[in-house]
């Protein structure tokens, strides 16, 4: 390997690409060449570095100086001052807004605070298009250990002992899921990676795929070995153009090195992966709808049971795991279950990747131990609410999660505590809203989403989402009736009990929590025909 005096990392995730990151990278390479530094300094395009709204962001190693947002015009100055003369360009350093605190060290930038990176261990640190760099950070060592030193049953046992639960929303214990499929007797089994990521406010899977695609390949191959499957599919939503490209490159590289294909590491175990591209349907994230879609049909969920673990893709036993779940597997194998249990809570070990969106100063991706409180996430890591406004509510778990008021800011962020609070951790989306927003207007926006995304197969969901939207629309336009609150509650309960899949069961959750915690705002719209925040134009 060649030795470079410095490395310059340029964020190549989707938002930064639109912020002009490719142009910045090209300018950097050109300028470094012009200054005759090409042999000393290497430019690396990496996955997301975290603070999405500061992009394009670049980091200079070994110092770890964080610059952003960087414009093409700034590049000559950075190269001349920092790379040639070794002087930090103060003016361009990324600042944590609004406190204007400097982000200097990448390993521990101030905004990382209580963060702990297991899933995102490589994101932003390696070139995702280089399998060598992944290997250089212990990549494929876990697969090697499984194939050479462990029996499939031992792998499952280890994952069970780690306490890992699925990160796709349902929080099902991963080891147990693998065990069901391992025990099923069949000539063919499959591993599916669910990268459909349609939950509004969620973009963690995209950034993992863009930043560390090999970790998913390795996780899937380990799952394949554990359950006896030799074929995997990654189902990526069609909108994720860069994720699809990077994943394909990674699969090709892994095949070239014999990390996918027949007889991996001479163990006799073979495994291969193909990508399937989604076509824009939220419901396809539901595991049985996803299977229908891979088979080439309309993505309508199947009735469960039977579960995919025994009757999945083409009727064969199938493990469906989320991207983040799979990214946890290699470090768990390498470091052991006790290490993993050292993070998070007793019932929910490990970390969780959250995406912070809405009215919050530091938007973007964070990874924290399970069980940290909502208040810590918003104020310690997220930098609080911008513009001097007040916190009004946070929706956890995406559009199908509940809305929590200020009184619940100290709820621990793990699957069980949030479920007890009437909400959900779900995919890890966190939407923060300040006091300028109207509850009815937001509820209407949520229901518009579900009404559009309901697949129409079952009546409670198809009709329920439509009717809830209509009622919200009437309330918001001053045509609400006194009985509407009870009607919505009843409708919501029917949907929760009678819908075929999780879409219809979860769709009323935000409405129910809003009726519970912010009932007075609905009443103001209905009884007084006024919108307390003035949003609805009543």
């Amino acid at each position: 390997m060649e030795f470079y005096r410095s490395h310059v990392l340029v964020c190549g995730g989707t938002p930064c690409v639109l912020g002009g990151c490719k142009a910045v990278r090209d300018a950097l390479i050109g300028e470094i060449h012009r200054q005759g530094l090409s042999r000393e300094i290497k430019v690396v395009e990496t996955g997301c570095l975290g603070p999405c709204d500061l992009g394009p962001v670049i980091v200079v190693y070994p110092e770890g100086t964080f610059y952003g947002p960087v414009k093409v015009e700034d590049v000559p100055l950075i190269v001349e001052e920092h790379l040639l003369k070794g002087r930090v360009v103060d003016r361009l350093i990324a600042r944590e807004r609004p406190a204007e605190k400097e982000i200097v060290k990448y390993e521990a930038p101030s905004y990382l605070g209580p963060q702990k990176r297991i899933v995102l261990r490589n994101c932003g640190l390696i070139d995702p298009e280089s399998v060598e760099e992944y290997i250089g950070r212990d990549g494929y060592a876990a697969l090697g250990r499984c194939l050479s030193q462990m029996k499939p049953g031992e792998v499952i046992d280890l994952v069970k002992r780690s306490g890992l639960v699925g990160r796709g929303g349902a929080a099902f214990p991963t080891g147990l899921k693998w065990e069901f499929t391992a025990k099923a007797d069949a000539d063919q089994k499959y591993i599916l990676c669910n990268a459909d990521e349609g939950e509004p406010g969620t973009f963690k899977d995209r950034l993992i795929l863009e930043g560390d695609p090999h970790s998913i390949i390795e996780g899937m191959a380990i799952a394949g070995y554990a359950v006896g499957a030799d074929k995997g599919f990654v189902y990526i939503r069609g909108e994720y153009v860069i994720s699809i490209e990077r994943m394909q490159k990674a699969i090709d590289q892994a095949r070239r090195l014999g990390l996918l294909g027949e007889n991996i590491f001479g163990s006799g175990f073979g495994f291969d992966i193909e990508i399937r591209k989604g076509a824009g349907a939220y419901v396809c994230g539901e595991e049985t709808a996803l299977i229908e879609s891979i088979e080439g049909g309309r993505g309508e969920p199947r009735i469960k049971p039977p579960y995919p673990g025994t009757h999945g893709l083409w009727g064969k036993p199938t493990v469906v795991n989320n991207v983040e779940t799979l990214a946890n597997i290699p470090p768990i194998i390498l470091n052991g279950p006790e290490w993993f249990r050292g993070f998070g809570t007793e019932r929910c070990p490990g970390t969780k990747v959250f995406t912070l969106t809405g009215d919050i100063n530091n938007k973007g991706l964070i990874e924290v131990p399970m069980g940290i409180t909502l208040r810590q996430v918003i104020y310690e890591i997220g930098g609080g609410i911008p513009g001097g406004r007040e916190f009004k509510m946070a929706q956890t778990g995406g559009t199908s999660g509940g809305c929590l008021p200020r009184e619940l800011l100290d709820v621990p962020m793990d699957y069980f505590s949030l479920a007890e609070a009437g909400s959900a951790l779900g995919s890890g989306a966190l939407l923060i809203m300040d006091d300028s927003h109207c509850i009815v207007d937001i509820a209407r926006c949520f229901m518009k989403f579900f009404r559009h995304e309901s697949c129409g197969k079952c009546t409670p969901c198809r009709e329920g989402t439509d009717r809830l939207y209509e009622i919200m629309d009437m309330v918001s336009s001053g045509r609400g009736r006194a009985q509407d609150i009870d009607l919505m509650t009843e409708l919501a309960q029917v949907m929760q009990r009678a819908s075929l899949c999780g879409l219809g069961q979860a769709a009323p959750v935000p409405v129910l929590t809003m009726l519970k915690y912010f009932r007075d705002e609905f009443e103001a719209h209905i009884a007084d025909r006024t919108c307390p925040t003035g949003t609805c134009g009543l």
Partner: protein
Amino acid sequence: MAGIITVDDILTKYKGRPDALIDILHEIQDVQGFLSDTSIIKVAEALDLPASKVYGVATFYSLFTVKPRGRNVIRICESAPCHVLGATAIINALEKELGIKMGETTGDGKFTLEYTSCIGVCGVAPAIMINEVVYGNLTPDKIPHILSEYR
């Protein structure tokens, strides 16, 4: 230069693979801009599927369209994180700038305005997608400049 890809080329590539229906529809739409009745019937015949099944799939997924659209499709995210940070103002700015309403195509066939659910770039909300390119951190005053690249 490679010749123009036709529907027949795509169907030859996926012969006997009904499971590849969604990939086939993606590729045909990339080439033709939308999925016409003629293409749908061709696909059905080639894969030995009922045309109703192919049409059912084509109309289930929101990335597919069975009607011709403008040369540039602008998809505006209207999910909650974008809504909270001002998607409505972006919609108004686009409608005003193009002189059409959501769901419509401009008279010169250059632009179509559509809604989309979250496109996974909420960290830079509000966001839109023009064809395959994502634009984020939008404000109404940035719209004319972005559109000028496509005019």
